[in-house]
């Protein structure tokens, strides 16, 4: 590989101040916008989670009324999924994909600008519903009818903002695919692409196939409520269970949209700090693709208890359990990559290692939930809450944090404080387990999810979980402090910030120049 940056262009003809960010078409600017936006949403959604945990600290009603509690669970989920995680991954894609494949920018820079700037409007609209007289959406993020059809005036606003978010994701996905398929440096064949690029390519295809189905489902809700159709209203011959089928046909691929880029990040960081090549690159690619394909035929495992026939329950049970095979391949490959590597444990590596262990715990509880007869006990209990928080918090969010620590020196040219990073890691990891591990126990003991009050025997574990949640929230303030400290430093980071780091982005100077590869690099 050769470096080819003899002419770092100075900033040219750019509007300054706020207009720079509003009109920018630069992939790095847009990546930063996505990441900052995601951080803001992470704190808003986290604040809502703390309201939930404060209320659940004790049985009985202390702080909020049940209606508002339901709005908090609904909004927490919508904001964390669509506001924190998805934009974080799109932000990372924006920053990294062009640099990783040796392209000057994304394929569709103006579209890129637009798909970001849709988000603030969509979320303003979504969050504004909380100030309505009838309150925000309270039927859960899954918007199941008939309950969601009976809600207050927030419903059309929520649906329109989801449409906007869907449009933004689809545009972003089209951009990612167009970039990866058409703008790779000469010589970079598909099977030579960095694994993060592969996982994002597959994620983008999932987005394109799944998001329009969500758009369809919520449009049907909207016409049922306002235009007299009866897709889901039983009075007109509709069927509420139909919504669950359509929703989860989107919803399950969505789950993998939230985790596949995380797999890509971990598969990038583990080899870097083990100073070995990724073990089983080809099998990683095939495993990712098979997870994506399987995600379209397992949707009804979210609805084992709606009254499906035995054949359906068995089909969805076995296809779901099948997903454990490619996922197992991935976990095996990560461990095999570390085997006899000369490992060091900097903050990104620590988060990636915790990802492997804790995500696997979440995967195992997922397998338990996949077993139909057992699911009848677990369904809609805190066990489910424990499961998906294990795969999303120490899973997806840990991967995002690891990625930020890993690429921060490349983005800013500045190295974060390693000691503080490690403190952040240990606090986060300890508190995340204090928060979510007890939820397994209360769930198995029968505590239902989405309730503001509970039976007294669940008190102890709920208190522990609430303490953990506040600790976790405070630890993330440390993260912001670390970012702030890093940005205040002078530029000192080396071009190749990590000894074992591989990839085209490390051939660029740190901080990465505004325009990366004007001339495509050569790939051996």
């Amino acid at each position, binding site marked *: 590989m050769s470096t080819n940056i003899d002419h770092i262009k100075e900033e040219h003809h750019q509007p300054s101040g706020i207009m720079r960010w509003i009109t920018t078409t630069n992939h790095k600017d847009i990546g930063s916008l996505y990441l900052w936006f995601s951080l803001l949403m992470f704190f808003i959604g986290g604040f809502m989670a703390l309201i939930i945990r404060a209320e659940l600290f004790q049985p009985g009603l202390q702080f909020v009324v049940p209606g508002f509690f339901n709005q908090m669970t609904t909004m927490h989920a919508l904001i964390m999924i669509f506001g924190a995680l998805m934009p974080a991954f799109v932000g990372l894609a924006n920053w990294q994909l062009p640099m990783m494949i040796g392209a000057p920018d994304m394929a569709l820079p103006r579209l890129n600008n637009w798909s970001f700037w849709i988000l603030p409007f969509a979320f303003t609209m979504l969050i504004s519903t909380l100030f309505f007289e009838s309150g925000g959406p309270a039927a859960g993020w899954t918007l199941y009818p008939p309950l969601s059809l009976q809600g207050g005036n927030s419903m059309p606003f929520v649906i329109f903002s989801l449409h906007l978010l869907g449009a933004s994701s689809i545009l972003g996905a089209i951009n990612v695919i*167009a970039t990866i398929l*058409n*703008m790779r440096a000469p010589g970079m064949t598909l099977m030579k692409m960095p694994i993060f690029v592969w996982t994002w390519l597959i994620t983008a295809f999932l987005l394109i196939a799944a*998001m329009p189905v969500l758009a369809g489902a919520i449009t049907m809700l909207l016409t049922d409520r306002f235009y*007299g159709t009866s897709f889901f209203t039983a*009075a007109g011959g509709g069927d509420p269970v139909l919504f669950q*089928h359509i929703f989860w*046909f989107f919803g399950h691929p969505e789950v993998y949209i939230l985790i596949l880029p995380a797999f890509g990040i971990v598969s990038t960081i583990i080899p870097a700090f083990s100073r070995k090549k990724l073990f089983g690159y080809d099998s990683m690619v095939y495993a990712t693709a098979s997870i994506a394909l399987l995600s379209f035929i397992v949707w009804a495992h979210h609805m084992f208890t709606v009254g499906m026939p035995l054949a*359906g329950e068995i089909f969805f049970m076995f296809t779901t359990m099948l997903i454990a095979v490619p996922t197992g391949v991935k976990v095996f490959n990560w461990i095999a990559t570390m085997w006899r590597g000369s490992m060091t444990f900097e903050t990104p590596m620590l988060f990636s290692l915790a990802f492997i262990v804790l995500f696997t715990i979440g995967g195992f509880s997922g397998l338990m939930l996949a077993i139909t007869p057992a699911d009848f006990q677990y369904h809609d209990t805190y066990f489910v809450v424990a499961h998906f928080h294990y795969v999303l918090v120490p899973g997806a969010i840990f991967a995002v944090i690891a990625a930020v620590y890993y690429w921060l020196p490349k983005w800013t040219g500045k190295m974060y404080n390693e000691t503080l990073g490690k403190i952040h890691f240990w606090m986060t990891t300890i508190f995340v387990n204090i928060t979510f591990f007890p939820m397994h126990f209360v769930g198995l003991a029968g505590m239902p999810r989405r309730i503001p009050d509970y039976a007294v025997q669940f008190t102890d574990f709920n208190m522990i979980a609430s303490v953990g949640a506040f600790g976790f929230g405070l630890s993330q303030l440390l993260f912001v402090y670390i970012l702030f400290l890093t940005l205040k430093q002078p530029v000192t980071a080396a071009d190749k910030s990590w000894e074992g780091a591989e990839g085209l982005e490390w051939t660029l100077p740190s901080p990465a120049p505004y325009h990366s590869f004007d001339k495509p690099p050569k790939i051996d």
Partner: protein
Amino acid sequence: MSGIKSTITKLSLVVVAMYAFSYALVPIYDTFCEITGLNGKTNDVAYTDNDINKEDRFVKVKFISNVANSAPLYFEPSVTEMTVQVGKPYNTHYVMKNNSSRQLHTTASPSVTPGKYAEYFKKIECFCFNQQTINSGEVKDLGVQFIVDNDLPDNIGDIVLSYTMFDITNNISESNKL
């Protein structure tokens, strides 16, 4: 650049196709449920085949009722249980009373449990085939004529027929306005 354009065109087509597919799922789901009898979907047009078989097989049919969204209606079966011979038509009725002070339009949605055997429960005549108009304070008898099919598997002892009554007055007045 032409490569990028063709990628975008193809991907946009996929997006449109998947949106259409979400709507296609509605009839697919309906057909699937009808063929398999899932969700306790029964026939919603009258059954006309009247081939009475003289087999001595009896099943218990239980009747239950629900009123959706606490509409101001009294709605109960006149008898809650009948022992019927398979292959023979039977009559029963539900009683509905309008407890509100205005005229209401209603419609009922039927369901048979166990859903798997819904296909063997045939309705020859049913108030659920039509909508009802009921005046304030009026009491109505709503008739059902049904037949349990000869082919009912032997392991079935009880069948439950349930109706949920919906007040659709507002929907109707809205569609009249349009």
